[in-house]
Each structure stands twice: as structure tokens, then as C-alpha cells.
């Protein structure tokens, strides 16, 4: 391989990216050295096993990936703004829509949702950490280095360019000869394994570590949604693991799974991909449903309407999510019976989802509603998501789908589902739990400005795509001629995309503004909320709960406040056992990165060395004798006194 194949060359925008990557890296290194923060970074963050800090690292990574995926989106919209545009060539456009999809789903939505789980779940169930804190750190670093590997493809070797679904035979070595799709298989594999371990970790945490008295049917709705999500992760991700491994074997080791000759079957990939890919949609959306449920109930000052039906609906959605995958390729010739079956299962999902929509509306009804920023996202979500859902039912009808398949109508539909669903969900969650993470609230005025820019920009950007799709504009085409008449609506959509981007800029500016100006000392419960996490001081001490709470009902903290009953038992503190920090998860992540990178370029000697390194890391962990440490009762008493200003 020559150097000019190794580094991506020939595009001024790529050179600009090279320069900016080098400058940002230098700035980080110089900044850390100048302010003498290397030790702090290593001790407090890179080696941490504290679920709250891991959650914050997930959220920061997700925001950075949102920026990267967002820039991709703006480039695409700029290219499509006018007919016969020449800003991007076809190859570059292919790479950008591929990485936009991959990054937004796998490296933005997933980690944002998992970050929320990490910060909130142990607090919400009254636990001191997740079941396996060290494994949790491994999950994070696997995700992080997987994401870095995929992002590297942009400047070294070339990005994947066969769509985020990487259909064969297009994604095969024959038709995509660059290393782009090698990156796809390895980067997703590494972070996917991390996600699978998150799944195991959170199921055990939620099922085995709840505070005394918190029966399953007393859990907050966000906890329920996370439990169900992790069950889906546990059963869906191994399918992705296999699919990606077969892809790697086909592309790097010359096997014949999805090839056109020697018995290979390209449709096998489409099936495996969507058997994972459809449940994946629910993995990113169910936790958002949970966040909305908690937010709507808190800011309506009411119990969640239809608690049991909410749980039953989510279980129904999780089961159905595994039975609908073929609706992604109705037009690929599997016959009327199969299409009919998948049509019906797909439409059936609208029923439990509709139940949830009505439950949220009934929760709002006669509530004492306060229009805070998290609540605005929740209120904005309901009507927009309904549009996404209704167009989804249109697409679910196999015979009608022949008309919309692979058009901008589909693009509009899934953005109308995923942006109000997942993105508004995590943004609502971020604004809602921000004081729990950092001890101060985001500025409400700026947050509302950001919200209105985002919601207006979103609708202006995506509503025209429904009509463009119905008029016959297919997705993934890098340009079109003026005679198609697609020009004006595309221009409107592009303007909307930029308004949406300005909204995100305001949202990010709010972090700096609030960090400098927001009032501190608002106590642990600034929203007058209902669930256990708000009974802790903000920011939360490392051990979460000095004493474990006693749960007597749903919304235990609200119950304790209303009826003036104690949540915690009287009596002296006892010492708390804590896990120690460790650098091993980070080092394991680095080794996995080297392993993945070597395989991308078929450098087998470094790959084998890195593989041995992984086994050595596993052995080091097995022989390690680290029993954690204890926080003494005296120290806890002092911390609680300082944080709460009194003794509990």
C-alpha cells in the first residue's frame, strides 16, 4: 500500500479536516500540560469506575459525535440545496451519508441513551453503583475506541461508502475495494461488544440491586424502559456481532458468505442486519419514552397515567421489534405471504405505541403543568412523533411501500421518529438531570431559545422531504437536474437544517453560559420531582446513598415529601464498600483499537500481537486481587453534613 492510498488525498475539505484534527489534538495536549491536568484526567476520569462519571463521559462523547454527524448532515443539505450542485462529488456524498447514519445511530443516539442510563439508573433504584462497575468502564472504552476508529476512516484509508446498512453485494470487496467497509465491520464490532456488556450489566443491576421495598411495579418508568431496552440489547446485539464477523471474513479473509459466486447469498446480509437493526431502533427509542414519562409526570405534578399499561406496551413493543425486520426490504422479492406477515406485525406496533401516547396525554390532562425546558421537549415530542408514527404505518403497508420505498418520504419518516423520539428524549433528559450531574441548572431562557430554534428548524428541514419523496425524489442521490422541480423544496429543507444547527449551537453555548452564571446551592431537588435520585444531594457523593432508602410506594420520594414520612432510617452511618479505580479498561480499549486498525489494513502481525495483548489483559484481570476500599462512617457523616448542611 502506498502513502497516498493510506492517507485520504485530493479534497481540500479533507486537508482542512487533517489540519483541524492536528490543531485540536495539539491544543488538547498543550492545554493539559500547561494546566498540569494529566494526572487529574487519568485519576478522576480515564480510570474511573463510578457510574456517574462514566455516564458523563458517554454524554460528552455523544455530543462530540452529534457535532460530527451534524456537520455531515449540513454538507449533504448544502449539496442538495440547488440543482446540479458541485460541492461534493458522488463518492464523497456516499461516504458522508454513510457515516452520518452510522455516527448518529451508533455513536450519538446509543451512547447518549447509555450515558443517561449510567447517570440515572443506580440513583433511581437506590443503589450505590451498577452491578459490575469495572465491566461498565470496559463497555465505555470499547464504545469510545470503536467510535474513534470509525472517525479515523475519514482521513486515513477512506470512509465506508455503501450506506449505513452496507448491503451486499455493494459492500463486498469486489464493489467497494477501499478499506472503508473494513472500518465499518471492525469499529462497529468493538463498540457493539461494549454495548452487549452494558446490556448484561444493567439487567443485573435493575433486577438484583433495587433498594429495599422497590418492587418491580414500583420502579420509575425510566428504569422500566431501561430494563426492557437492555433485554433487547442482550438478544439483538449478538446477531450484529455475527453479521459483522461474517462481513469481516468476506472482506479480509476471502470467505463466500455474501458473494455473488460460489454459493454466497447477498440477501443473508440484509436479513441479519435488520434482525439486529430493527430492534436497535427500539433500543434508542424506549429509554426516551421512559424519560418523557418521568418528565411529564414531574412537571404535571401527577402520577403517570396508566402505569401498568405503559409497562405492558413496552414489553409488547420489545417482542414485536424482533418480528418486523423484513419490512425494510419489501421490494426485494420475498413474495406476498412474507410481505403480508411483516406488514401486519409492523402495523401492530402502532397499537402499544398509541397506548403510550394516550397515557402521556391523560397524564397532562388537568395537571399543574410547568413549561420548563425538559417539559417543552416532551410536549414537542408528542405531536411530531405522531406524524412520524402515522407515516410509519403508511410505509408498513407492503403494497403501498412499493411507491415510497427508498424515497425522501422514508428519510422524512425516520427523522420524524428518531429526532423527536430519541434526540428530544435525551435532550429533555439532559436538561432534567443536569443539576443532578453538575449541581446547577442550565439557563432556562437560553434552553428555550434553543428548543424553539430546534423544533422550528426540524420541521422546516424535514416536512418538505415528505413531499419530495411523494414526487419521486429518491434518497442517497447526490444531485438532481433543475427539470425535476425538486429545487425549491430542497432549498427550504436546507434552510431548516441550518436553523436546526443554530439551535444546537445555542444549546451548546448554554453549557458555558450556565457554568459561569447559573446559581449554585439549589439543593438536591430543584424541580420538586418524584423519584429517588432527587433525594440525594447535588452533585451526588461518590457512594450515592449514605443509607439505602426505604421504598413504600411508586414515586417514593414524592410520597415521602407529601406525607412527611422519612425515606431513610434513623441511626448511625455504616462504612461503605467501594470498587477501586483501574486503568485496565482504558488500556484494553487502546489495545482493541490497535487490533481493529491493524485488521482494517490486513496487517496481520500487529493484529496478532494486539490479540495476544487482549488475552494478557484478561489474564491480568483474572489474577488481580483487588477488593476495593471502604469509606468510613466518620467520613460519610462529614460528607453528608457538608452536602446537606445537617445530619440526616
Amino acid at each position, binding site marked *: 500500500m502506498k502513502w497516498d492510498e493510506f492517507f485520504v488525498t485530493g479534497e481540500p475539505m479533507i486537508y482542512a479536516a487533517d489540519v483541524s484534527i492536528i490543531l485540536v489534538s495539539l491544543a488538547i495536549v498543550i492545554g493539559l500540560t500547561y494546566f498540569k491536568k494529566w494526572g487529574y484526567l487519568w485519576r478522576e476520569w480515564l480510570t474511573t469506575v463510578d457510574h456517574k462519571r462514566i455516564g458523563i463521559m458517554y454524554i460528552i462523547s455523544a455530543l462530540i459525535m452529534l457535532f460530527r454527524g451534524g456537520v455531515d448532515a449540513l454538507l449533504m443539505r448544502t449539496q442538495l440545496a440547488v440543482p446540479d450542485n458541485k460541492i461534493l462529488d458522488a463518492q464523497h456524498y456516499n461516504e458522508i451519508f454513510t457515516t452520518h447514519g452510522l455516527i448518529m445511530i451508533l455513536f450519538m443516539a446509543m451512547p447518549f441513551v447509555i450515558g443517561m442510563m449510567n447517570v440515572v439508573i443506580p440513583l433511581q433504584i437506590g443503589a450505590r453503583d451498577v452491578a459490575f462497575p469495572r465491566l461498565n468502564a470496559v463497555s465505555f472504552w470499547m464504545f469510545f475506541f470503536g467510535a474513534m476508529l470509525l472517525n479515523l476512516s475519514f482521513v486515513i484509508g477512506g470512509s465506508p461508502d455503501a450506506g449505513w446498512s452496507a448491503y451486499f453485494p455493494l459492500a463486498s470487496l469486489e464493489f467497494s475495494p477501499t478499506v472503508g467497509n473494513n472500518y465499518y465491520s471492525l469499529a462497529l464490532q468493538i463498540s457493539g461488544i461494549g454495548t452487549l456488556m452494558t446490556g448484561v450489566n444493567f439487567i443485573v443491576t435493575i433486577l438484583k440491586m433495587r433498594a429495599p421495598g422497590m418492587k418491580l411495579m414500583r420502579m420509575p418508568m425510566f428504569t422500566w424502559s431501561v430494563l426492557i431496552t437492555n433485554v433487547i440489547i442482550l438478544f439483538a446485539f*449478538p446477531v450484529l456481532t455475527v453479521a459483522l464477523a461474517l462481513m469481516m*471474513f468476506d472482506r479480509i479473509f476471502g*470467505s463466500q458468505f455474501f*458473494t455473488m459466486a460460489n454459493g454466497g447469498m447477498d440477501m443473508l446480509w440484509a436479513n441479519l442486519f435488520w*434482525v439486529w437493526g430493527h430492534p436497535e431502533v427500539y433500543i434508542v427509542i424506549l429509554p426516551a419514552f421512559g424519560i418523557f414519562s418521568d418528565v411529564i409526570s414531574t412537571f404535571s405534578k401527577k402520577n403517570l397515567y396508566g402505569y401498568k399499561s405503559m409497562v405492558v406496551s413496552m414489553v409488547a413493543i420489545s417482542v414485536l421489534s424482533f418480528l418486523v425486520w423484513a419490512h425494510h426490504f419489501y421490494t426485494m422479492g420475498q413474495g406476498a405471504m412474507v410481505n403480508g406477515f411483516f406488514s401486519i406485525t409492523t402495523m401492530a406496533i402502532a397499537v402499544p405505541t398509541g397506548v403510550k401516547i394516550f397515557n402521556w396525554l391523560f397524564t397532562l390532562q388537568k395537571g399543574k403543568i410547568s413549561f420548563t425546558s425538559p417539559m417543552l421537549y416532551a410536549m414537542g415530542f408528542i405531536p411530531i412523533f405522531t406524524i412520524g408514527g402515522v407515516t410509519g404505518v403508511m410505509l408498513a403497508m407492503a403494497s403501498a411501500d412499493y411507491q415510497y420505498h427508498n424515497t425522501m418520504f422514508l428519510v422524512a419518516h425516520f427523522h420524524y421518529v428518531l429526532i423527536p423520539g430519541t434526540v428530544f428524549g435525551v435532550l429533555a433528559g439532559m436538561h432534567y438531570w443536569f443539576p443532578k450531574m453538575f449541581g446547577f441548572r442550565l439557563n432556562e431562557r437560553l434552553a428555550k431559545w434553543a428548543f424553539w430554534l430546534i423544533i422550528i428548524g426540524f420541521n422546516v428541514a424535514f416536512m418538505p422531504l415528505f413531499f419530495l419523496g411523494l414526487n419521486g425524489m429518491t434518497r442517497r442521490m447526490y444531485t438532481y437536474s433543475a427539470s425535476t422541480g425538486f429545487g425549491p423544496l430542497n432549498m427550504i429543507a436546507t434552510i431548516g437544517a441550518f436553523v436546526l444547527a443554530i439551535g444546537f449551537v445555542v444549546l451548546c453555548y448554554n453549557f458555558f453560559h450556565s457554568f459561569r452564571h447559573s446559581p449554585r446551592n439549589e439543593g438536591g431537588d430543584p424541580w420538586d420531582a418524584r423519584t429517588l435520585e432527587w433525594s440525594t444531594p447535588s452533585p451526588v457523593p461518590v457512594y450515592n446513598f449514605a443509607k439505602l432508602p426505604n421504598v413504600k410506594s411508586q414515586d417514593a420520594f414524592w410520597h415521602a415529601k407529601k406525607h412527611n414520612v422519612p425515606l431513610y432510617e434513623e441511626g448511625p452511618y455504616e462504612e461503605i464498600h467501594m470498587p477501586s479505580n483501574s486503568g485496565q479498561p482504558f488500556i484494553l480499549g487502546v489495545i482493541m483499537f490497535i487490533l481493529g486498525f491493524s485488521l482494517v489494513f490486513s496487517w496481520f502481525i500487529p493484529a496478532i500481537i494486539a490479540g495476544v495483548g487482549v*488475552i494478557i489483559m484478561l489474564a491480568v484481570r483474572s489474577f488481580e486481587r483487588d477488593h476495593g476500599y471502604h469509606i468510613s462512617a466518620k467520613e460519610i457523616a462529614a460528607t453528608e453534613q457538608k452536602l446537606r448542611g445537617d445530619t440526616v
Partner: protein
Amino acid sequence: MKINDSLPLEYRTEENSNKIFGFWLFLGAEIVLFSTLFAVYFTLWNRTGNGPTGKEIFEVGGVIWETLLLLTSSFTCGLGIHAMRLNLKKPMMVFFGITLLMGLGFLGIEITEFVNYVHEGATLQTSAFLSSLFVLLGTHGLHVTMGILWGAAILLQVNRQGFTDETANKSFIFSLYWHFLDVVWIFIFSFVYLKGLM
């Protein structure tokens, strides 16, 4: 730390019983993983292209020995855990040692089998059938390899530390893993080899 004496040693602390439950969940994911590989194999098993069919390359002798070794190793692994519950350190180590040796024997036969296939011109690259065969068997074989390394590490720890909460917990979880590999092999034996030879 709360200790519940009514339970076997490996379950006594909360952390350890969580680990066992977590490992069961992990095995659930492993079931999905192998089911997917089986589904791939069943889709591709008669798509042999220009390559040989299963009937032409499978050798009964080796497969029977593999099966005998792995099934017996699962039995000795169970005996090892039984010895552990009776707090007999030396018998436990002997049984686990036999288990790992049989695992090695299994692996040796499987590698010989792979080498034979390749010499007959049946490689990973030959046809979709052979790709799916090698990847299914190879994934199981890789699991056995990791199991042998893991089991050896645990044996060293039991030897040094005796039976503690930790070593008992690790040994028990290892036994779950080893039995699981045995179950997967039974499916491979029935649906790959027996079906292929018919």
C-alpha cells in the same frame, strides 16, 4: 459484607450471586450468537458452488472422538464442582485438570480435521457452505480455546488460594461455560455432522 451461610460458597456474597446471574445472561447472548451461526449454516449448507459437499469431506472417526472427549470432560467438570462443594481441593483440581486435558484433546482433533479439509482443497474461501462450516466450528473451537486458558488460570488460583468466595465463584462460573460449550457441540454433532452424513 453480608454472608449467607445457607448457600454454597460460590453464591454467598451479593457480588458473587450477581456474577452468576450476570453470567447466565451472558450465556443467553451466547445462545443467540450460536443460533445465528446455525441459521447461517442452515441457509448455506447446500450452496456448495464448485466445492465439495459435507458428505464428501466429513470423517466419522474424528467426530466421534471429539464428541466422546467433550461430553466426558463436561462430566468431569461436574465432578470437579461436586468436589468443591465437599471442600476437597485436590480431587477438584484433578477433575478440572482432566477436563482441560480432554478439552485440549478435542482441540487437537479439530485442528487436524481442519488441516485435512484444507489439504483436500476445502478452504474458507472455496464455497459459502465451507465458509459457514469453518466459522461455526471455528467459533466453537475458539470458545473451547478461551475456556482452556481461563480454566488453567482458575486452577492456578485455586492451587494458591484454596477455596475462597472468589475462587469458588470463578470455578462455578467456568463450569457453566464449559457445560454450555458441550450443549453447543451436541447441536453441531447432530445438525452438522449427522445430518451432513445422511
